[in-house]
């Protein structure tokens, strides 16, 4: 079914954009390295492939004048989400270009800003590519060529957005999103919103953490019961 495919592709694009955003955050910081730039490149290329695929799937139904009103509304909703996602991606790509030019890796005119982020982000990129892990094959001068490539890709994405606006006319004000305000608070089955806590960094783990406290009490209760049983068994035998 066309809509399910489009939805799946859009989810994948959304994932790739979110991961790309997360990776771009660390350019210029202490976690910046050739590996990071390579991960950026792979993520954005995947995102662009997905974008082209979605565009190919969504454009024909929207240009088809004989489509029913409900179906059309559904496709328009997907279209609006898609074009906003693409705008986000383009903006992040531009920022990546700016930051990448300002903080070149090989000849540091400016040393990297020590932001406290140290670990690698290979898992993030792997998540974007829906792969298990990522292999790094970057050579030393990777970031410089990558910047040229990035520039070309930004222009391509810009053209794609422009093209999309010209070919398909979806007035934004008529589109009703399906999610209401506060929809994110309803737990999605796969989402597991448990362990991200309040971000004041000087906090103590332990007493103020109800789910962990609950787990701890249950565990200690089970342990006590086991010890009591063992003592009883020892006394009996």
């Amino acid at each position, binding site marked *: 079914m066309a809509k399910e495919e489009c939805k799946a592709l859009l989810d994948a694009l959304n994932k790739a*954009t979110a991961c790309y955003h997360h990776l771009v955050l660390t350019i*210029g910081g202490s976690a910046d390295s050739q590996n990071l730039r390579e991960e950026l490149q792979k993520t954005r290329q995947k995102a662009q492939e997905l974008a082209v695929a979605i565009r190919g799937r969504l454009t024909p139904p929207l240009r088809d004048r004989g489509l029913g009103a409900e179906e059309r509304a559904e496709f328009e909703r997907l279209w609006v989400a898609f074009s906003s996602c693409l705008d986000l991606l383009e903006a992040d790509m531009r920022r990546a270009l700016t930051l990448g030019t*300002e903080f070149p890796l090989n000849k540091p005119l*400016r040393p990297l800003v020590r932001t406290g*982020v140290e*670990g690698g982000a290979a898992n993030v990129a792997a998540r974007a590519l829906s792969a298990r892990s990522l292999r790094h094959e970057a050579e030393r001068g990777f970031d410089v060529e990558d910047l040229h490539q990035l520039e070309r890709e930004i222009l391509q994405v810009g053209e794609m957005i422009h093209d999309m606006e010209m070919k398909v006319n979806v007035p934004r004000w008529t589109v009703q*999103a399906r999610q209401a305000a506060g929809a994110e*608070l309803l737990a999605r089955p796969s989402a597991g*919103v448990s362990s991200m806590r309040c971000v004041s960094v000087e906090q103590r783990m332990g007493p103020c953490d109800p789910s962990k406290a609950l787990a701890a009490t249950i565990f200690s209760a089970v342990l006590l019961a086991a010890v009591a049983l063992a003592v009883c068994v020892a006394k009996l035998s």
Partner: protein
Amino acid sequence: MAAGPASHGGLRRAQRPHLSKMERMVVSMQDPDQGVKMRSQRLLITVIPHAVTGNDIMEWLIHKYCITEEEALHLGTLLVRHGYLYPLRDPCHLELRLDETPYRFQTPYFWMSTLWPAAELDYAIYLAKKNIRKRGGLFDHEKEHYDQLHRKISHTWDLVVMQAREQLWAAKQRRKGDRLVIACQEQTYWLVNRPPPGVPSVLEQGPERNSCTAGRVQMTKTVDFYRREVECLRKALGRARVKSSVCLEAYLKFSSQRGPHDPIMSGCLPSNPWVTDNDTYWAMNAPSAAVPTRLRVEQWAFSFRELLEDPVGRAHFMDFLSKEFSAENLSFWEACEELRHGGQAQVPALVDAVYQQFLAPGAARWVNIDSRTMERTLVGLGRPHRHVLDDAQLHIYMLMKKDSYPRFLKSDLYKDLLAEAVVPPKTKRRVFPFMRKPRHSSPSPALLPASASREPSGGDGEA
């Protein structure tokens, strides 16, 4: 929407040089040999490096720029307020404390110059993420913003929710320490860009100026780019420039000349109407006052333009010129002014009248214009428009300015005016100003629609 910063943001960035200066400072702090001393921050299990204390920052600033402690504190506070440094213990209060409170540097992505102006979609995604993390525990002003955003961009709310969830998942793929740091960074960015109520916003800036500099990163330099640069530079060459020494001299002269005349700098006699409710000052300085004040008469000596702009001055100048038998110059000038500022329909008739009265050979009040200007004007009279007599008017103006005006200033007429001019006495200050004269607030103009049409003429008459 998250707009591309290349063209639109570039213009804004060029007008905020304080940001690039701060960024240079932050980058020089990162120098491994001469930068700020870094410590590690120890949480229960995780250790996060690259923390600095307020004291370290101050010492580094004092050492590097050879400034006083007060100035270093001010600089440090600016850095924190603009979000380049953020405190780790009390993240909602962006200020620099001179003790062992730890701070950390902000990642370049969230620097003010990279990511400005803050996009609404991004803010919506941030609030959604915070909503998920804190299970609805947003601050009040954040809840308001959330509702506002939901109304504004409700069409993309699907994307907001999807992106919020995915970004949180992406963050989970990192180590715990990195996750905390990145969350802090984002929180600081939004504290600076959407400050809570009561905190002054550092983003307010003055009126925009039209500077044509491009963004920080120039995409490949195409032919168009160079063409625009060449045109920009050519225009810049053609601009008239004045040396600041000349300019400042003129400014000083203006200030010293006008100082005694300015009612705010040197007080106004008899008294400031806004303070004492006595509007004699306005009545005496009205455009059509019978007897001008001394200050006013002195002002006519500053420049010819002052004299002509004041109706009383102009009338006296006309008297003087009629004694010298050159009053037609001023009449011609006045007629040209009327042409320039009058109605479009009257232009042809007026041009004709002016020609008949002042320019035709053998006219009643013939003005003396040099032959070249006269030829040009006669040619232009074939197609009359409101600026056709501009050249002639300018010629007569310069004639009056160079010739009649100095004689006017030296004449007896002017000296008599100076002598007769009134200097109002200063009103005696009452001992109990509030007891004697009750103040009445003027009635609200909204309540008197009938007499509103009569008001403007009275209002204009007051200086």
